[in-house]
Structures are given as structure tokens and as C-alpha cells.
């Protein structure tokens, strides 16, 4: 019986790539988003996948598998059959930070999956409550260092983008033990920042831009190489005097290891076409997203980005006192 099953599996394994080569994709593709519907990653996944479906001639179905900072969904996606019918939209946290944050992680983002490409970069901003004393980033740095026992930082939970990027900031400022208040998600954290219960946080531009424009909170700097067109008045960390703090919360597509080349090529092409589409471009830019470069849209370029940020984050995150 076992033998029969084995030979059947072998036959299937032989037959599948051959089929995939000629016809991929011949049924709908599942894109796992490892977060709840409506979040920043989910929004980008839905915008991009809608257009990719047109190119591929098959619907990409977004499936939200939330849990454990996104690692539950990515684990399921990259341990699925490498046939091109299960892909995932992950982000900075699940692909670069997770190995250092979750010691028992069941996947290896560097060697254990097939990268497809980057879908978009999301700038990170350092924001504070309106009444917070420091006026600019330089004052902020001095103030935080001098008042490390008084300042409260807010984040959206261990493993979240705001936690990851702020832990990096605290590490670089030399105040890793700064008081940090954990919330369940960006919404409640932002609520308490607007009402002045907490002092500052780091988060993605899409979550905070409207509050900054309305003046309910203030922004010190954006941690990208260039200013964001969505907030042209906010200086970069380089301009404002903290050049080493460079981090972006990107979202990108990956698949199980060993994906047939045919499938990889078709997915890469579909992603590229989606990112060149005017409607998709406009919608992503409206969110404050930075469109990926030609290089970052390739599997190798995306893999390099994952490795670069993993190297940057691992030492800080591993050393971070988890309170």
C-alpha cells in the first residue's frame, strides 16, 4: 500500500511540472495575506492581485490567514505544494524580522522560499502627540535620551511593523529599555497618541498621514531616502539629523521553495504589469506607497532586500529586552 502511494506520488510529481509548464495557471491562485482583511498589507494585496488576475487569465483569490504576527499565514503558504497555486503577500515583519522575533519560526525566509518580487515600499514616520515638547528630530533625540525614564512609546504589539521599526530606533538611540506601551493594532495606539496618553510611535505612512495633515499629531521625520509626495513638508531622517535610521515597511510576494521556473516567470511578469498599470499606480501612490524599482521587482532583487533588512534588524531585535 505504502509502495503504491509512493509510486503514485512520484508519478504525480513527474506529471505536475510538465502540466504546469504548458498551462499554468489553469485554476484560481490563492494569495495568502497573513493579516486581517482591511490592514495595509491586505489593501496592497487586493489592489495588486486584482490586476495580476487579468494578466494571468485566472482569478487570484485573497485568503486572510491571520495570527502570530503574520507568521501563521506565511508558514502555511510557503509549506504548501510548490505548484504556483499558493502564493503569499508578506511584509518586512514576516520576511525580515520574524526569524529574530519568533525563535520557533517554521520557515526560513532567506533559503526556504521562492521570492517573486516587491509590490511596494511603505515609508515609516516618527510621529508624536501634538503637545510633546521636542519641536524637531534633533530635539527629539536629545529629549528622549535625557528623559528615558519619562517618555512613553506606543506600538501595535510585539512583531508588528510599528514595534519592529521603533525597536530599531530605540536600539540606534541607545535607549532600548524606553517605556513601551503595547496595543492591539495601530488603531487603538493612534487613538491614545491623538488623545495624548502616550508620547510617540513609529508607524506606516498610510496609517498616520491623515492625522498629520489634520494636525492632530506631529511628524518628526520619514525614515526613507526621499521625502514622501504625500507629506512633502516632513523631512527625511537624513535631512533632520538621524541619517542611520533608514527603514521601510515593504510588502512583497513569495511562494514555496522550488516553484517551477515557468510559474515564477509568469508571476513576476504579472506583478510587473500590475505595477505599470496606471490605475494600480495611482491607488498605490495615494496610499503613500513607494513603487518598487526594476531591480526590486525581480526574485533576486526582492531576496536581496529581505536579506539586507534581516541583517539590519536581527541584532537589534534579538537583543531587544522584551520588557
Amino acid at each position, binding site marked *: 500500500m505504502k509502495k503504491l502511494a509512493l509510486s503514485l506520488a512520484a508519478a504525480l510529481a513527474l506529471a505536475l511540472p510538465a502540466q504546469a509548464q504548458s498551462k499554468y495557471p489553469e485554476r484560481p491562485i490563492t494569495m495568502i495575506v497573513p493579516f*486581517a*482583511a482591511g490592514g495595509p498589507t491586505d489593501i496592497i494585496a487586493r489592489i495588486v492581485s486584482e490586476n495580476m488576475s487579468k494578466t494571468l487569465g485566472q482569478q487570484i483569490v485573497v*485568503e486572510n490567514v491571520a*495570527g502570530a504576527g503574520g507568521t501563521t499565514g506565511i508558514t502555511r503558504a510557503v509549506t504548501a505544494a510548490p505548484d504556483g497555486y499558493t502564493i503569499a503577500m508578506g511584509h518586512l515583519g514576516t520576511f525580515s524580522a520574524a526569524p529574530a*522575533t519568533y525563535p520557533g519560526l517554521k520557515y526560513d525566509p532567506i533559503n526556504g522560499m521562492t521570492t517573486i518580487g516587491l509590490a511596494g515600499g511603505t515609508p515609516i514616520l516618527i510621529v508624536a502627540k501634538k503637545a510633546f515638547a521636542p519641536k524637531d528630530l534633533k530635539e527629539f533625540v536629545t529629549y528622549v535620551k535625557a528623559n528615558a525614564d519619562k517618555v512613553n512609546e506606543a506600538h501595535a504589539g510585539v512583531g508588528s511593523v510599528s514595534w519592529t521599526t521603533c525597536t530599531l530606533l530605540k536600539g540606534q538611540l541607545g535607549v532600548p529599555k524606553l517605556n513601551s506601551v503595547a496595543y*492591539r493594532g495601530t488603531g487603538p495606539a493612534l487613538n491614545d497618541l491623538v488623545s495624548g496618553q502616550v508620547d510617540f510611535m513609529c508607524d506606516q505612512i498610510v496609517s498616520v498621514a491623515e*492625522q498629520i495633515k489634520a494636525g492632530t499629531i506631529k511628524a518628526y521625520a520619514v525614515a526613507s531616502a526621499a521625502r514622501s509626495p504625500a507629506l512633502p513638508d516632513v523631512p527625511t531622517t537624513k535631512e533632520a539629523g538621524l541619517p542611520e535610521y533608514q527603514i521601510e515597511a515593504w510588502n512583497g510576494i513569495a511562494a514555496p521553495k522550488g516553484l517551477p521556473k515557468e510559474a515564477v516567470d509568469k508571476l513576476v511578469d504579472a506583478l510587473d504589469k500590475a505595477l505599470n498599470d496606471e490605475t494600480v499606480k495611482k491607488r498605490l501612490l495615494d496610499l503613500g506607497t513607494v513603487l518598487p524599482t526594476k531591480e526590486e521587482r525581480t526574485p533576486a532583487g526582492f531576496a536581496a532586500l529581505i536579506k539586507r533588512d534581516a541583517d539590519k534588524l536581527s541584532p537589534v531585535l534579538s537583543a531587544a529586552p522584551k520588557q
Partner: protein
Amino acid sequence: MTEMFANLSLGFGVALTLKNIALCFTGCLVGTLIGVLPGVGPIATIAMLLPITFGLDPVGALIMLAGIYYGAQYGGSTTAILVNIPGEATAVVTTLDGHQMAKQGRAGVALGTAAIGSFVAGCFATLIIAALGAPLTKLALLFGPAEYFSLMVMGLCFAVVLARGSILKAFCMIMLGLLLSTVGTDLETGQERMTFGFPPLSDGIDFAVLAMGVFGFAEVLRNLENPETRDVVRTKIGRLLPSWEDIKQSIAPCLRGTFIGGTLGILPGNGAVLGPFASYTIEKKLAKDPSRFGRGAIEGVAGPESANNAGAQTAFIPLLTLGIPPNAVMALMVGAMTIHGIIPGPQVMTKNPDLFWGMIASMWIGNLMLLIINLPLVGVWVKLLQVPYRLMFPAILIFCSIGIYSVNNQPVDVAFTALFGLFGYLLIKLGFEPAPMLLGFVLGKLMEEKLRQALIISRGSFMTFIERPISAGLLLVAVAILVIALLPSMSKKREEVFTE
């Protein structure tokens, strides 16, 4: 005042186009039909139906999504009344008296009361939002972690009053609920607690899984034991709609519920959850004969259902005026708005007045649609009760399983639900009630989170809960509730009334 009417007329101008009315109707209908699947609450329904709005303009899409939300919310009450399965936390209270009414052959009256109560609450909530939306926003900002913690403590005290049987047993169940809520990843440290290294537990226990198990599955098990009891329901269906007498009894609870639910709905961090519980507690306290509660008192349906719907609507206030979602459903609405190119913020009202007022107007239209859709459906739902057990129970179990699976797409959730079903059966056999446990469970997560946030901000000083006036006030109310519930004379009366 004139400004408000000008704004509302702008809103109705937007919402009353044929297309938007059709979208609102479709949203409510689809939301009701999907939401009536046990376990499929508003979040799962909206997430599932989000893609169908992609082709619409932003205003139309949001009107439709809001319709889906109300529809799904109402659908949850339908299952609570008919089969004793609360679709979400706010419907837990409805099971207490709503399902009892169904057992007495008054399912139609219960459903009708819920629909009419929701409509009345919806009308008032729409007016409140239109008139006071902007100033009320300040209320949301007054509540920090300390105030919120005290509010939760007050909420827990409601649970004691909620109990039908012994206070001691209710207290045990609250504690059990609190304990269950601590399973999962620690918010501050990211360490796993009480998961036994079992990965599916790392995010804690899902509310739907627990509720579906201890209510839905356990109810099926209990009924299997004694299949004859429900034949009463099958032969005698009774009136389909509430009589004038019923309506007279419901008016005051309905208005009080609207006020309580509407106020709590504005608070950040899912204050709306408390609305139905608070309303039920107050109705039971005000009633001349509290012993009717838990045995099919119509006030126990009218009040909480109104509170539920008013809260569902005022929860839009922080989202529309502050741009901050107060709960998971609203977070999903933020996503939906963003996908349609409108990023919610404090300026939505000035930047997109047609959207802002159009949505408010559509809330009222949505409530009217719900009434129009649901009153005729009452007959259909009630007929479902006549389906023989051998068809009904497998169907309930299948739909529960589908619903549970669709929440997180995790098969293990279904297995957990079955486990909680056995546990719930055991509780019923031992005379413990699941409702206080669910309240403890829902509030436990929030309480722990807020307690720790408040203490981190105050650098470990417990005085913060007393020094802040709102927090101190809420704690005082909590103490008062406890004293009233535990006063020797009163508890003696309770014993007499509630001996099982």
C-alpha cells in the same frame, strides 16, 4: 440646527438616488442572509463580501458595506433567538431571553421586537450622529487606558446581575472566562502563555469558537438528550409579530437601550460590547418582577437589541470624525474605504461631505431596509423551527462548522469548537451558565490590556485609577452595583426566586 438639516438633506440627496437605495437594499439583504449563518458575524461577512464592492464608486461602495454590516449584525440576533447561538459578543445577551421566548412559541414576537427595536434605535442613533457627532468625538478622547479599565470592571459587575442561578456559580464562570482570555501570546512581551507549545493557541481562543461551542454545539447535545421537549415549539408557533401589549412593554426598554448602547458605542476599544449587557442589567433591575428575566421577558430582548444596534451605529463616530476605528469591524471599514481611495482621517467631514453625510443618511435608510427585509422574513425563520431534529441538528452543526472555518480559515478552530461543545454540555449538566463566562472572556482581554497600559504609563502606580476622575467615578458605580447585588436581603430574595 438648520445646519444639521442642510447637512442631512445633502446626505439624503446622495443616499436617495435609485442606485444607492438599490445598493443599500442589496447590502442589507446579503448581509442578513450571510450573517444568519451561525458563527458568521459582521467581520467575516464584510471580509467575505468586500470584493463585490470593488467595481462601485466610493460612496456607493461604503453605503453597501454599511448595509452589509447592519444586516450581518441583525442576522446574529436571529440565530441567537432561534437556535441559541450568538453570532458575536453583542448577541450573547439576546440568547438569554430571546431563545426562551422562542421555546415558548414566541419566536416571531422576539424577532419582530428585535427588528422594531433595532429600527427605533437606528433612527435615534442617526439623529444623534448627525447632531452631535463632532462634539461627541471628545468623549472618545477622554477615555485613556485607566478609564477604560474601570469601565471594564464596571462591566464585569454586570455579569453578576446577569446570572439566573446562584451568584457563586456566576462568579466562578466569570473567573473562568477571565482565565480563558489569558491564553495566547502576551501582548507586552510576545511570550506564549498557557498554549502548551501548541501553535494554534498562540493567538488565544477566538470568541466565535468559544461561543459557538458552549452555546451552539452544547445546545444541540442537550436537545439530543430529550428530543420531546421542543415539540411544544413545533406545534404551537403563536403570533408572528408583537402585539400592541408587547410593543407597549418594549418602548421604554428600547429607548433606554438606545441611550446606553449609543453612548458606549462612541468609546474607543469596542465599548459597544458592553451596551447590551448594561441594558439587560438595567432592565432587570428596573423590572417589577425580575424573576421573569431569563425566562422569556420581552424587555430582555427589546433593550439589549436596541443597545446593540445603536452602538453599532455610533461606533461610526470615531471612524468618521477622528479617522480612528474603535473596533475590528470599523478597522475593516477603514480598509474598505482605503481600497476605494478614501483614507479616513479627521478631515473626512470637510473633505468628503457627500460621503460623510451620505453615509449617515444611508444609516437611516439601511435601518428601514432591515425592517422591510426582516419583518416578512420572520415567518420564514420561525418555520425553520418546525424542521425535524434529525434534519435541523446536522444542519446547525454543518453551518456552524462552515462559519467557524470562514473566520480564520483554520481547520483546527472547528475541532476546538467541538471540544468547547462538550465542555458547554458539562456546564449545563452541572448548572453553570455560559453567559457570564463569555462576558468575562470578552472583557478579560481588554481589561488586561488596559490595566497593563495604564500601569506602564503611570510607572506602576495603582493610584492612577483613583486619581483620574472619570475612572474613579466608574469604579464607584461598579462598587455600587456589587453592593446592591450582594446585599444580604436581596440575595436572600434571589435564592427564593431562583432555586433550581
